[in-house]
């Protein structure tokens, strides 16, 4: 169904897969895109699928791009840490397509020697979140204790929908060690604050240094937007002057 086009075959030593496709609040995509940008990760391959939405994206400059998922690679020459990073401008829409993409990503990851992976997702509360927590779940229960040391909250029940969840679930079947980190979000906004929280946890676990300032600025914008929304809601909730009272101020 879907097609994986590999552009480069870099030699990676025990690479770790990090996946984050667009989903609720764009938490996963924002976090992973920031990681790609700040690490200056290189394009490894692209995935095209008829299960992606049948459309193209017209960008701000008027040029178009196909719907696609992308795989990037990065290697830290000092520590020997290697990453394969999955991102994209969409997720497959149908469940068949989501399974297909997740399997193809894992096939490719295994070809490069991946034995450990992280997926990023959103933990949707439906309510405004002041300080987003990071929830964690893992393919092996013993990993959860280690994750607690990084300040995460164990997520024990619930669903993780879409390709981000399937990657994690299918990894277990392949005996790839998998950890899913979920940023708490209302789900109603593009949530850079939640993305920052989850990326801080991820980079701490991976022991990778990433400059967060661009994401921080976006998070501040998110906060400012939320404050404006709160002010507007507050204003609407205030009792409005009656029409007769208004009339007293105008004589014509």
């Amino acid at each position, binding site marked *: 169904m879907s097609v994986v086009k590999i552009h480069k075959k870099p030699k990676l030593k025990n690479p770790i897969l990090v996946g984050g496709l667009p989903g609720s609040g764009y938490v996963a995509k924002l976090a992973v895109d920031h990681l790609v940008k700040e690490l200056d990760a290189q394009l490894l391959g692209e995935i095209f*699928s*008829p*299960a*992606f*939405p*049948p*459309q*193209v*994206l*017209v*960008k*701000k*400059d*008027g*040029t*178009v*791009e*196909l*719907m696609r998922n992308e795989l990037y690679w990065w290697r830290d020459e000092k520590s020997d840490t290697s990453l394969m990073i999955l991102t994209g401008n969409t997720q497959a*829409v*149908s469940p068949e*397509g989501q399974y297909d993409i997740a399997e193809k990503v894992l096939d490719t990851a295994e070809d490069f020697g991946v034995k450990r992976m992280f997926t990023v997702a959103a933990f949707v509360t439906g309510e405004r979140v002041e300080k987003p927590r990071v929830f964690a779940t893992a393919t092996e229960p013993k990993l959860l204790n280690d994750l607690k040391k990084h300040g995460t909250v164990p997520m024990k029940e619930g669903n993780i929908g879409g390709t981000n969840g399937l990657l994690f679930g299918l990894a277990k079947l392949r005996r790839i060690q998998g950890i899913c980190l979920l940023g708490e979000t209302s789900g109603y906004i593009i949530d850079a604050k939640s993305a920052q929280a989850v990326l801080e946890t991820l980079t701490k676990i991976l022991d990778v240094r990433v400059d967060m300032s661009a994401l921080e600025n976006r998070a501040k914008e998110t906060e400012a937007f939320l404050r404006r929304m709160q002010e507007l809601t507050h204003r609407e909730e205030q009792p409005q002057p009656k029409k007769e009272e208004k009339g007293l101020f105008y004589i014509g």
Partner: protein
Amino acid sequence: MKLSQPVALVGSPGLRSVGLIAVDYLVKKLPCKLFLNLYSGSFPAEYALTPSYIATPGFPGSGGVALRNGVPELPRVEFHSWQNRVVVIKGYQADFEGQYQVAETIIDHLHRLGTRRVIVLAAHGKGGEGVQCAGTEKRILEEMTKHGIETGYEGPFFGLSGLILGMAMTKGIEGLALFGLTTPMPEDPEFPDPTATKALLGKVSELLNLPLDLSELEPRIEKKTSTKKPESGFSV
């Protein structure tokens, strides 16, 4: 069919039917010769959801034929030619399963014909009048600026027309989209807008130097009523 590095003009059912009316008009007025039909098991005769250009998984619609003058006709994509330099394609929206396959098949065929540029004719629902563009390369957009056509839309371009543009890129064919500005009608998104079509075709004939008389466009379209009220019934 002998064609010399043709330019392909593609219009499909879409917003205010601007692209579809445009290709119908080109076929009739140039006039063009039909040289190929493309059929697909993914072409519904009746859509489960509207508009037709937003395909959703799990809603394939219903197969069937349409009757024209008492004769059954399968849904199809039509390839027409004018002289040896223009291909006009009348598109059809497939269900979710078929959209990519149909777009790819069309582009494969255009590639075999030696097509150098695909121009997709569509609409942008921002209101007002005029024509805007999008393209596969910045160079093409700069070329359009000389003709007074600017970019102005950012976001998803749905359905076959959008995919044609994307698939053209994969085959190294230049892709340009021209959008006639129109006002959306949420209650009947594909209701024809002849004014936007006329503006669009005006630019097309300028770009390709086509001997196109646009005077018959508006009266012919005005006879049409809502696309939701076909002349004949649908039965299964």
